[in-house]
């Protein structure tokens, strides 16, 4: 399989953190026994956006920015760098199909930067924003199965963003599990 894959590892402290985040009150009363895990290769677009702008103080400002667009959820954010790819990768795990095309991701990235440029520059005169590069990246994330719990109660751990929650809070992951 040919794709931009970004590796990650899962350890016990991450699972403990995930339980704490997902079940802050229940964890004292219930023991959560792990029952294996699943790998989800989470799709994200990384786009390089070029901005040209004139302000009343300075003309011809140019620079590039990097935006990550979630391919499963309507979320995008500015990031400082591209994640490190592990090159062409063939491996086990679930590969959710991106729900948007690269073109749509471009539009969202431009929209995000436009909103920030407009709201933060009081002396803005003119601007032009375009997308110059786009990459679809698959980030390795994990679903930790819990014994005697439904799939919705399992844990979802995204090491790249230090995020952990119950799967029911991430319906797009739950959909992936159901369709497997």
């Amino acid at each position, binding site marked *: 399989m040919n794709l931009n894959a970004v590796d990650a590892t899962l350890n016990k402290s991450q699972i403990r953190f995930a339980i704490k985040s997902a079940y802050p009150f229940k964890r004292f009363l219930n023991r959560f026994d792990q029952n294996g895990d699943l790998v989800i290769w989470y799709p994200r677009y990384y786009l390089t956006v070029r*901005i040209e*702008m004139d*302000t*009343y*103080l*300075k003309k011809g*400002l140019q*620079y*590039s*920015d990097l935006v990550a667009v*979630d*391919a*499963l*959820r*309507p*979320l*995008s*954010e*500015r990031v*400082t760098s591209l994640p490190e790819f592990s090159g062409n990768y063939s491996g086990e795990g679930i590969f959710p199909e991106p*729900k*948007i095309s690269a073109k749509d991701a471009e539009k969202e990235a431009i*929209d*995000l*930067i*436009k*909103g*920030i*440029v*407009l*709201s*933060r*520059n*009081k*002396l*803005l005169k003119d*601007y032009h924003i375009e997308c110059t590069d786009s990459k679809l990246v698959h980030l390795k994330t994990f679903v930790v199965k819990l014994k005697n719990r439904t799939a919705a109660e399992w844990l979802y751990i995204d090491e790249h*963003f*230090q*995020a952990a929650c119950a799967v029911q*809070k*991430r*319906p*797009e992951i739950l*959909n992936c599990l159901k369709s497997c």
Partner: protein
Amino acid sequence: MEELTIGNWAWFWLIFFIVGTLGIGVYAMTKTKTDEDFAVARKSYGPYILILALASTIASGSTFMGIPGLAYDKGFPALWYPAIYPIGIYLGLILSVQLIKRAGDTFRSNSLPEFLGQRFDSDFLRVGFALLSLLLIYYVTAQVVAAATAFEVMLGVDYTWGVIVTVIVIGIYITIGGSHADILTDAFQGGLMLLIALIITVMFFLGTGTEGGAAGINTAIEAQDSSLSWDNYFSPGDPIFGSFWLVLLMFIAHLPFAMNPHIGNKAFALKDSAQLRKFLIMAIPIGSILGFAVLGGLHARALIGPDLRPDAAIPALFIELFPPAIAAFLGIAILSAIVSTADGLFVSIAVIFSNDLYRKTFAHKIHPHKSEKKIEKTALNISRVATVITVFVAMWLAWNPPDFLAVLLWIGVGGIMSGAAGPLVIGSMWKRSTKPAAIASFLVGVISYASMWLIVGWQNPFGAAGVCVILASIVMIVVSLFTEPMPEEKLNEIFSPVRK
């Protein structure tokens, strides 16, 4: 050589402040030559910088003048205010900011009124909250009054000239463009204010100028009026600090404070949602330290006596305790508090006109053939004109100010919070909230607050806002339970968005 007076030093530091602020602006702009990004200020939106920017926005002229003025006038019972309000404000922020940040990112909300409209799928709520937010003009006015009072006391200029000088200073400040400039100046001012609040606190506990530390201050105040001493937990008969219940109302009133458009929008600026936890953990202690500035009001009462105008307590304390050069420099902290808040307010008011009213509501009706790009350009021009008009309206309102800044400020803020409590705070936490309930709660909050002022004539803005926040919250919950829940699909869009 003749010794320089405090007025000379104050002018010196004022010029230093203006030149310094402009310098930061120009320095920030030169960063665009490199890979550093001008428009969005990469690497500058971490939780530390942002918490200082947030603290400087929340701490206004009222923090260093109006609230210490209350303590100066009402003695130790006024300490309830700094003990209560940071907890109320930041608890409200913690309860609702996560959803607002996530959903705001999803919907690209440029303002809280826009977010509110999206949350409940309601144009009425967006336009209503936007129009209500115009009451922020009183907030701006309070900042101008605070600055002019500081100029009057410290520079010795006539109050009306103080208003004019203030408007010019704010005018210079808000024309500094660029994200780096905006963030750096706000964070710099936040740091400066934190330092000054700490100095005021340390001075109070050391009892500088009196004997016996804080107990010495209490003794001096007790000698003037025994009802002001620390043996009195409340001031019986006082409309603000009269009883436990009034203090409780004050706490409730502050819960939705962070929903003011110029404060809540800071959440949209955070670079990464993962930083939200650190941001919130730091928010309460930093905010609380700024609240300690109130101790300066008690200190001034002990040292100077009862004849000052209350709002002038802190400037007068500085003059009393410090050599002219340092006292005048401390005045700059007040100016920092004022301009950092005024800046955010001007932007918020401008966004109400350009985004919430023009771009989102009327643009497609009055300019149906204009391209999106042209509409955005018009919106940008509208925001500039709105900023200038706001400056002049604030100047006009500040010409004849009332006694207490905190009260003036709350004429606007209380109305906004009464309206926001149900739809924004409860609506952010409770999925079951419905659109009719949000509209009913908004209307009840606003109308009841206006009635408290105009018909009942209750002279306690915190109490009035507290009662209205409770009323609006009850209406939100009861009407939600009796009306059709919002479609599951819409709720998922807000609380756990997925692409179709």
